């Protein structure tokens, strides 16, 4: 894989157990709004709990709860 620029990193690049901070969101405005309603707002600390089987959704711990996102949704959350 190419070396990732700092601003290109998104949640799908997080490693298991790694805690990262959301920097911004990129994508369809409705989806970005909904993701932020789930708590993925800039500055929020997020930890990747696990990737689901078969390239399925990824689970994240944030704000005291656990939320699963499809990988294409997670790619909208830049870290």
């Amino acid at each position: 894989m190419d070396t990732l620029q700092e601003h290109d990193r998104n949640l799908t690049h997080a490693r298991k157990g790694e805690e990262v901070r959301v920097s911004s969101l990129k994508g369809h405005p409705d989806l970005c709004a909904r993701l932020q309603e789930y708590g993925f707002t800039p500055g929020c600390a997020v930890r990747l709990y696990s990737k689901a089987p078969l390239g399925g959704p990824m689970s994240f711990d944030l704000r005291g709860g656990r939320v699963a996102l499809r990988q294409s949704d997670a790619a909208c959350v830049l870290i």
Partner: protein
Amino acid sequence: MALIALAGQANGGKTSLFNQLTGSRYKTVNYPGATVDCAVGSLKLPLGEVAVLDTPGILSLVPRSEDERAAVQALGNASRLLPGQDIPDLVVAVVDMSQPERALGLVRQLKTAGFRLLVVLTMPDLAARKGCALDPRRLSDALDLPVAVINGRTGSGLPELKDELSRLLEECLAPGPVTLPQSIGEDEIRANYEWAEKVVTHALSQVGRDGTGWGFDPDRLLLDPRFGFVAFLLVMTGLFWAIFAAAAPLQAGVEVLLAWFGKGLSGLMPTGFLAELVSQGVVPGFQAVLTFVPQIAILFLLLGILEDSGFLARGTVIVDRPLALIGLNGRSFVPLLSGFACAIPAILAARTIPGRKERLLTQFVIPLMSCSARLPVFGLLLGLMFPGEAWKAGIGMTCIYLASLFLGGAVSALLARAVPIPASKAGFQMELPAWRLPLWKTIASSTLDRTWSYVRRAGGSIFLISVVFWLLNRFPSPEHSLALSAGRMLEPMFVPMGWDWRIAVGLIAAFAAREVFVSALAVVFAVQGGDAAVGKLLQVMQSATHAETNHPLFTVSSVAALMVWFLIAMQCLATTAVFRKESGSWTYPLLQMAGYLVLGWVAAFVTAQGLQLVGIP
């Protein structure tokens, strides 16, 4: 009458609170989006009776799916549900204490919109376990709102909450004008969270966990990229297999009981017309279906355990990817699974799917899931296929369930390409609620409730069909009955499958309710076989032959074709009506019904002829 509305995020404990307040027994499910419709109950307070409204969970006042829309509409104007009511006098904002930030953002929106609010903190035990308990008084200061705490599972805190509700309602302030926001900007969402973080920091009363809990997190297994899918499949296969295998011993007991009861009842009757009606019509009609009550109860029990534990939300995550390939969504999992109990609530449950195409597709394939009304039918047919071998019948049952899943997938994949609706861009997000040990009392009572309502619902149609069927089979005479003439007319359609007029009339009766097929056959064979047939339906059916050829009627190929027919054919008019209401048009429900009837016939035809072709009679 004053009106209190409950509002809050999904899986926050609204329905538990509603049940505690109103004494209702709505089923609570540890899954975000379990409540898809508003419910109304009443609460007695010293000042009089108060109406209570439970609403589906929302993330914000700007809805993004049908269940959220229903909730926001009801909050803005409750007159559709409660004539004469408008804005609730008081909104109880339910906040899950174990993850308060998201819910507090909604509290702020509700406050800005102009609602009168009481904040109720739920799940204090879970918050203490996680080490994030909040102090209600400090929270109240920070929010400038009244705050109460309740444990919805145990009911502790309920008297104090009722006092607080009385106090607030007695203040008798008319609810001010409420303006629901039309949209919510990203800035506002962020600002709400920043505000919520500050409020939580201010109100936090605990540092560190309280040391309770399981130690093992089942997510480590279920969400594991390697083992998760295997674990999931094991749970699901176990569920389907247990429905048949675990029920076998119970079923034997029920059969003995029913035979004893039927004999007693017939003995009480004076001989004559009425006695015959009871012994050949009503008794076998009921016996045939009630024999399968243990299986239905086990299905409801196991679904109840899955629902209460938190498994369902993990299921959606595991199947999201495979379901996306066939045009569905991870959120289709729960509607499809509840389709194994009954298609009607399942079609309502599909409201939580945000994309229209995915929602319609899910609702379209739900009737292919083998519902509990089909259990007695498959039970009888598997009994014919594997007499006395419960374990083989258990494997057969698992295969039937897998076949219905496979078929649903194939239909969905085909339609996903054919239907000219653009695919949704809503993606997939799912909150994973904390695992909970199911409360055995709740599970037991919900299993009993659901089984009893199944028996009651089926009971009416069984009684009616049994009586009507007995009359049709008995008059003018058993040899030249009305049922025989009607069945003979339909027979040509079913000859290729090896079915005769008796099965044909049973299939027609099944349009009243599928399980009635079993009752109808029981009555037909009871009239033909005389009293000897009562309680020995299986033996009588096994020895039944075609009238002209004397070939056995129930062969491997004819029984297999019947199973295929019942797997596919759309015979539930109530489902069609609900789908019409949910989709807002007749197009899809009628396509669904016609499509599945034709497909069912063709598939049964191919099954019977194919088996005969390879030499299986």
